[in-house]
């Protein structure tokens, strides 16, 4: 049998690959118009990301293929004679002809269109790159998926770029108007100028003129106004084509001529032309296997799209319409989510997410099925709020890249004894491609094992990470709103501090601001640690344990003047004990004036970054561990988290700072820094695991930023990093924060940047604010009377508390 393939894009490549991989014995001739082997068009934009020639998108070569003719085009099909002719003058006879000619960008017939570019092939991009050299302005016509990608590419080439979209909002095919508005905010923040609801009138030599008269300077103009199936060969030889284009095929990808197949973007299958590569691949596989005599069919495809567009999460899945919909919109945070459900509110039809695609992974497999929770709960599925993973029916596809179902993952656990995500990946290939299903895999694993109640307390059915997502996504700023909408009752000593910490992590300002003050445990409420007799301790921050003699003297003087007990802590700083509430502001006034800040010994927050003396003094040191420890402590000071965070930096492998017992520990190497995470002293000691080696200063900080932010977002209440790292696994952690498998790194980076920018000293802000000072009184009706129950005796020349049993009358 002799097979001829017209076109050599992704579909043609997959067709040839399937054929040869299944032992096809005939001859195969592929004729491709482009002057190169088939390549990954989906990743086309990365061709511009490096200098010319540095990015190779070419697919692996197919062995055993008859002939590939590059740079030649099929110009006619002789159906009666079963042969095609090409531009170079070849005549190629066939038994089976496969049309895999793809699509061509649509170029609107406007004056001046001749000087515009399109965005489809490597040659197109090379031409755009050449034209952009020395140019300053660019316009992309079309604000869809590809248009925005093209616009970002122009921006990357240094052009001030405008996007023009005729529809009322960006990406009209994927998102609805509300989503489009949120998306626009993201796009504008990237520095692109957006015009919507207006068409193009004409293109002039140095500008583009819109239908409403707006003139935009444009050295480079790119059309991205949709694609048209390349069905011209089929039309000319009388094959059936759709009214709006596309070669009509049946379930077996056969055209109206049984000897001719059509696959990929040129095909009209089941009334639809698919513009995504996954269905094109499926069509190619179906056609190849039909040719080989197998009975397989193409019955439609998942058109979910999830992309990391210009650093913006956009995802849509299923149907984008329905009788009922549930929408959450947070224009400030740039988040928009909408779910479509059937009119009885029982079946999930589809959804749209902009700015936060977390629900996408969990919900995509549930399209067309009965809902397992209320739509609003589903929207916040995050790490698995509404579905534990056990709720997925066995035939639900969990990993769409590799077509792995819930049932197969369950089997990997029960039959093969898989215990972690890495094992699931190994056994099923799920999660090994785009990675977006990895959180679901984790949830399914959890569902297969012991299922613990995730409810925080009687007031909330959600776990801490879920509440974090709800607060973040909905932009909730008060406990009252959260408990009214997502909980019950008036809270308790468990949920209130958790919510206070979440609000603080998300940049909620001072922990004693407004209603937040009422949520704090006594330590945070008085910004000090309570002691057994009701007095408090005072711990000024001493970053890295480095302190000047002057500051040491101030601490000594303050302790002496207020009669406090002093002790060097295990965290390389000094603790002053025995202060009464009404003394705290006076003590802190002195400390703040001398340049001290809160040490957050009372908070679930960064405690200390200990250091060894390092290369400055130590004869073995290879890096400046003190400098790094100080920089890190200053960077992360005040960062509220699920539990306290401790760190240390050692100047060489002798490890005098005990970095490996810390939540994040850093050990200097000859080439930079090794970063260890998940260490713990305390109740259950654990040595930290090596996360990354030989990092530069910059890479170190970036990795820690992400580690901490990801921990803050996803850990349980009072879960130290040790337990958290053990729970999610080091491999997964690496994927998320180093390989960016979830596409959230930019978000994590930004959250940390916000923290660093927003930091202020809590104690200074408190003593400067009369309203916050109101709480620092012994008695509301006798503010100057010291608590008579507080009594001390002396031990080793310092005070020591005595608990007096005061009898009640």
């Amino acid at each position: 049998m002799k097979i001829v393939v017209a076109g050599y894009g992704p579909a043609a490549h997959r067709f040839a690959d399937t054929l040869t991989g299944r032992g096809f014995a005939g001859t195969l001739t592929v004729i491709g118009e482009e002057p190169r082997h088939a390549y990954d068009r989906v990743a086309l934009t990365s061709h511009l990301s490096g200098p010319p020639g540095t990015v190779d998108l070419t697919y692996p070569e197919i062995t055993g293929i008859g002939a590939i003719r590059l740079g030649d085009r099929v110009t006619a099909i002789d159906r009666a004679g079963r042969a095609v002719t090409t531009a170079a003058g070849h005549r190629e006879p066939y038994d089976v002809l496969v049309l895999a000619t793809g699509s061509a960008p649509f170029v609107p017939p406007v004056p001046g269109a001749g000087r515009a570019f399109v965005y489809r092939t490597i040659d197109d991009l090379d031409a755009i790159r050449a034209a952009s050299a020395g140019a300053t302005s660019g316009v992309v016509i079309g604000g869809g998926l590809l248009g925005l990608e093209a616009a970002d590419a122009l921006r990357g080439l240094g052009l001030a770029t405008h996007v023009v979209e005729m529809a009322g909002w960006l990406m009209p095919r994927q998102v609805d108007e509300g989503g489009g508005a949120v998306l626009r905010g993201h796009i504008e923040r990237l520095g692109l100028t957006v015009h919507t609801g207006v068409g193009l009138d004409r293109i002039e030599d140095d500008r583009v003129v819109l239908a409403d008269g707006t003139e935009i300077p444009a050295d480079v103009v790119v059309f991205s106004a949709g694609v048209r199936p390349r069905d011209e060969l089929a039309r000319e030889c009388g094959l059936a084509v759709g009214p709006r284009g596309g070669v009509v095929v049946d379930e077996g990808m056969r055209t109206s001529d049984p000897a001719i197949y059509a696959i990929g973007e040129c095909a009209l299958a089941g009334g639809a032309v698919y513009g995504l590569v996954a269905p094109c691949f499926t069509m190619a596989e179906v056609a190849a296997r039909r040719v080989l005599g197998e009975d397989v069919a193409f019955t439609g495809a998942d058109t979910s799209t999830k992309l990391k567009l210009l650093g913006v999460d956009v995802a849509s899945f299923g149907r984008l319409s329905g009788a009922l919909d549930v929408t959450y919109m947070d224009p400030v945070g740039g988040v928009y989510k909408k779910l479509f459900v059937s009119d009885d509110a029982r079946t999930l039809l589809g959804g749209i997410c902009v700015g936060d695609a977390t629900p996408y992974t969990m919900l995509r497999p549930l399209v067309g099925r009965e809902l397992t929770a209320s739509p609003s709960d589903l929207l916040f599925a995050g790490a698995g709020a509404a579905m534990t993973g056990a709720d997925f029916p066995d035939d639900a596809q969990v990993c769409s890249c590799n077509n792995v179902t819930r049932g197969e993952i369950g089997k990997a656990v029960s039959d093969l004894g898989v215990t972690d995500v890495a094992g699931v990946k190994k056994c099923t290939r799920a999660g090994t491609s785009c990675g977006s299903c990895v959180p679901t895999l984790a949830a399914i694993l959890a569902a297969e094992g012991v299922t613990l109640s995730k409810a925080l307390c009687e007031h909330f059915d959600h776990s801490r990470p879920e509440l974090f997502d709800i607060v973040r996504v909905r932009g909730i700023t008060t406990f009252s709103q959260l408990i009214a909408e997502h909980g019950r009752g008036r809270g308790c000593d468990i949920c209130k501090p958790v919510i206070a910490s979440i609000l603080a992590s998300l940049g909620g300002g001072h922990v004693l601001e407004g209603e937040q003050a009422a949520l704090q445990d006594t330590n945070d409420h008085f910004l000090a640690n309570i002691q057994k007799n009701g007095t408090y301790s005072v711990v000024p921050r001493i970053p890295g344990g480095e302190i000047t003699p002057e500051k040491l003297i101030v601490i000594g003087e303050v302790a002496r003047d207020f009669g406090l007990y002093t002790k060097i802590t295990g965290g390389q700083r000094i603790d002053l004990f025995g202060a009464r509430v009404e003394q705290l502001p006076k003590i802190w006034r002195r400390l703040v004036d001398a340049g001290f800040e809160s040490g957050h010994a009372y908070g679930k927050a960064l405690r200390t970054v200990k250091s060894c003396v390092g290369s400055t003094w130590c004869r073995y040191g290879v890096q400046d561990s003190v400098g790094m420890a100080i920089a890190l402590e200053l960077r992360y000071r005040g960062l509220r988290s699920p539990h306290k965070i401790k760190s240390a930096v050692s100047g060489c492998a002798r490890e005098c700072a005990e970095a490996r017992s810390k939540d994040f520990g850093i050990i200097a190497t000859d080439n930079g820094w090794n970063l260890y995470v998940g260490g713990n002293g305390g109740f259950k000691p654990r040595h930290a695991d090596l996360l990354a080696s030989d990092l530069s200063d910059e890479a170190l900080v970036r990795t820690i930023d992400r580690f901490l932010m990801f921990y803050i977002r996803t850990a349980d209440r009072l879960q130290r990093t040790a337990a958290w790292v053990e729970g999610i696994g080091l491999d997964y952690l690496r994927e998320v924060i180093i390989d960016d498998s979830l596409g959230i790194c930019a978000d994590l980076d930004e959250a940390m940047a916000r923290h660093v920018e927003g930091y202020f000293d809590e104690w200074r802000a408190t003593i400067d604010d009369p309203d916050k000072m109101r709480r620092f009184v012994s008695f509301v009706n006798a503010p100057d009377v010291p608590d008579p129950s507080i009594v001390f005796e002396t031990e080793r020349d310092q005070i020591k508390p005595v608990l007096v049993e005061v009898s009640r009358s």
Partner: protein
Amino acid sequence: MTLAPHAPAPPAAARTWTRVCAYADLLPERGAAALVLGRQIALFRTFDGEVFAVGNRDPFSGAYVMSRGIVGSRGAEPVVAAPMHKQVFSLVTGVCLDDPMAALPVYPVRVAGGVVEIDIATAGEVSAA
């Protein structure tokens, strides 16, 4: 700790009210300590504006810190959690819900003309219930 939290209260007319502080001095869902006739009282203003008065001494730690606990609810009951080791007490009856052998004295309290007043005379012996 021997208390009769459910003993009947004397008729309101028999009470002697002592002014403690302005209602506005109390923050919603937070406590304040007061020194009334030599006794330490913990006053609480709940979310819906009600005021409760209990003893300030934490029976478990012996420290006078109850006013610094977190205010909330358990079921329908308004409660405060001891700041030291988090045992939860009813603000209505004073009884420790985690260990009913322990209880705080409960004082009759009212707000009159924007002023919080408590009946200290019956302190520690009779609950407000």
